[in-house]
């Protein structure tokens, strides 16, 4: 028996925010906390504020499950897992932002070109974008790794480039919606110069939401790719910690029953990517709800 009652007081802007469906509310706030925690962990690791020296081997406390001294336990040579996990964020944080930046900038350029002047740019840009999408990311990356043995920045730059089509499509479909509602034509007819229509009306007013969506999805993917590569032994090499190679190292112990060494970094991956997926999907839902309304 669902219960509906009218409120006597009109809801404030907080009310308007609270009016979001519960699912989206939880998803966005959880995603935001994950993003904050990740940034804090990254900044701390950059500044060296880690609970324990990540490379110090405490041979007395090998394979320990979480306890007072080591909040997330230790690995098979006694190194503190929590510190290594915080250090592991360096493997994908900045490269991830780089990848997102690349996909946003070029995505915006191609999105505006195809969105505003489809007759001229649709085919040439279309072919280029389809080319970028015609290969699985991991295969392309393995190819680049084999040829150039690049560091993680170049690898995630490649990931950023392959995300350009997705970002361009997100913006192009948004422009198509704005055209169908003839916002753009009305602004031009009023006399607003074309560059300001693109800059303010389209990119600033309507593009902001897309940036956040592309960032959350992009960061989620960057983590997935970096950890997979490190697990395969191509990304960050031992002893430098990456969540991927930490899980890989714990493999043998996993099957002897010491699950914790692999599971701690795996859970870190789980909760982080989960945060980005939930927030990205919730924001996408908000975007689509307003488009159709």
């Amino acid at each position, binding site marked *: *028996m*669902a*219960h*509906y*009652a*009218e*409120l*006597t007081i*009109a*809801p404030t802007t907080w*009310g*308007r925010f609270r*009016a979001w469906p519960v699912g989206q509310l939880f998803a966005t706030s959880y995603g935001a906390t994950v993003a904050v925690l990740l940034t804090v962990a990254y900044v701390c690791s950059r500044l060296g504020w880690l609970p324990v020296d990540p490379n110090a081997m405490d041979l007395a406390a090998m394979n320990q499950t979480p306890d007072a001294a080591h909040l997330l336990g230790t690995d098979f040579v006694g190194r503190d897992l929590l510190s290594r996990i915080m250090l592991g964020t360096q493997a994908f944080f900045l490269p991830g932002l780089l990848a997102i930046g690349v996909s946003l900038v070029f995505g915006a350029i191609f999105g505006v070109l195809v969105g505003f002047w489809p007759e001229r740019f649709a085919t040439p840009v279309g072919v280029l974008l389809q080319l970028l999408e015609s290969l699985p990311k991991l295969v392309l990356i393995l190819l680049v790794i084999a040829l150039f043995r690049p560091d993680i920045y170049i690898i995630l730059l490649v990931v950023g480039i392959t995300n350009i089509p997705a970002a361009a499509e997100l913006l192009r479909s948004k422009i198509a919606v704005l055209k169908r509602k003839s916002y753009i034509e009305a602004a031009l007819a009023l006399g607003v110069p074309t560059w300001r229509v693109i800059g303010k009306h389209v990119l600033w007013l309507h593009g902001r939401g897309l940036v956040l969506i592309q960032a959350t999805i992009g960061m989620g993917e960057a983590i997935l790719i970096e950890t997979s590569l490190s697990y395969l032994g191509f990304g960050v090499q031992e002893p430098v910690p990456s969540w991927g190679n930490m899980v890989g190292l714990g493999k043998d112990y996993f099957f002897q029953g010491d699950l914790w060494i692999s599971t701690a970094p795996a859970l870190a991956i789980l909760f982080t990517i989960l945060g980005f997926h939930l927030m990205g999907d919730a924001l996408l839902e908000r975007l689509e709800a307003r488009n159709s309304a």
Partner: protein
Amino acid sequence: MSTAPATAASRTAATGPILRIQDLRTYFYLPARGRFLKAVDGVSLDVQHGETLAIVGESGSGKSVTMLSLMGLVTAVPGIVDGRMWYRPAPDAKPVDLLEGLGRFAKLKLGPPPEVHKDTLGWHKWHEHGMSERRGRDFAMIFQNPRNALNPYMTIGQQILEAIRRRSPELSAAGAADEAKGWLGKVRIDDPGRRMTDYAHNLSGGMCQRVMIAMALAARPTVLIADEPTTGLDATIQSHILDLMEEMKGELKTTTIVITHDMGVARRLADRIAVMYAGRVVEKGPAETVLELRREPKHPYTTGLLSAIPTAEDIEQRRRLTVIDGDVPDLSRLGTGCQFLERCAVRPAGRERFCEEEPPLGEVGQGQRVRCWRHLRHATEA
């Protein structure tokens, strides 16, 4: 809950109305504003056999939601919260309440602030079970912008055959196809054979609407509901569609409910007219009395709607239209009292204070009812 006891149904003559809607209420909850949108707030209507009732009203008057509630197609939450719908399949049959059992799933407390307890899922399962049988057999519907209302992925023929098969499954494939072509011919579509294999995007707006009409009538419904059938079509096409509906009315004598905002359409098709405003019926009666501009008694809103259509003299002298002031009512902020008060130009002299209280839909002449204190004694409800 309305106090209409079950006996009210038996009190009416043996051959009562084919459909009697009593005190229907359909609410939608708006979480952003924390209020109910009272789309239908106590509507009572009845339709006699073979009659065409036109429901006239502007957007937000609740006319479409009333019909969607009748068909059980209301998807918003909480949806139907109160009311009864007595449906009599044949003139002498015993009326059946389509909303029977609503009490078990929905409790409505009217007092300000209104409160609703509803088991939406339970009601949906219970109501859907009953209505899915009647849709396409007892009731059929025609919609606005016909090109979108036809399935773009299925050919015209498949869609009409579906309606025919649902009504008479025993027909052979050839038999059904012939009947489908027959109906296409009846609605004046050229070369029915070839049109069967066409899709909705191959046809013009007018032709799509003819297919819709053929599809609805092919199910031989007892009640045909047309929701703004000609809105959005060009004037000439609109006129052709209205001719066709008049012809079908004469030929098949199907009971029809037409929903429109255009008094012209009501004039062409309706035997009786109900005018709706802010989720309730403000006037209902025979078409002639309702449509006659200078004939009193009449609800000020109906007068306003009629006077919004310019006459030849208005055009001659380029006179300004006599206009209903104010804006369309916000259904989530409806106050008590007469809903038309702030737009009413003919405040009943000496009876203003009555307008603080909502007037009932009182009888003012043979079969005509008006919801305005100018014509009703305050105390009793006729």
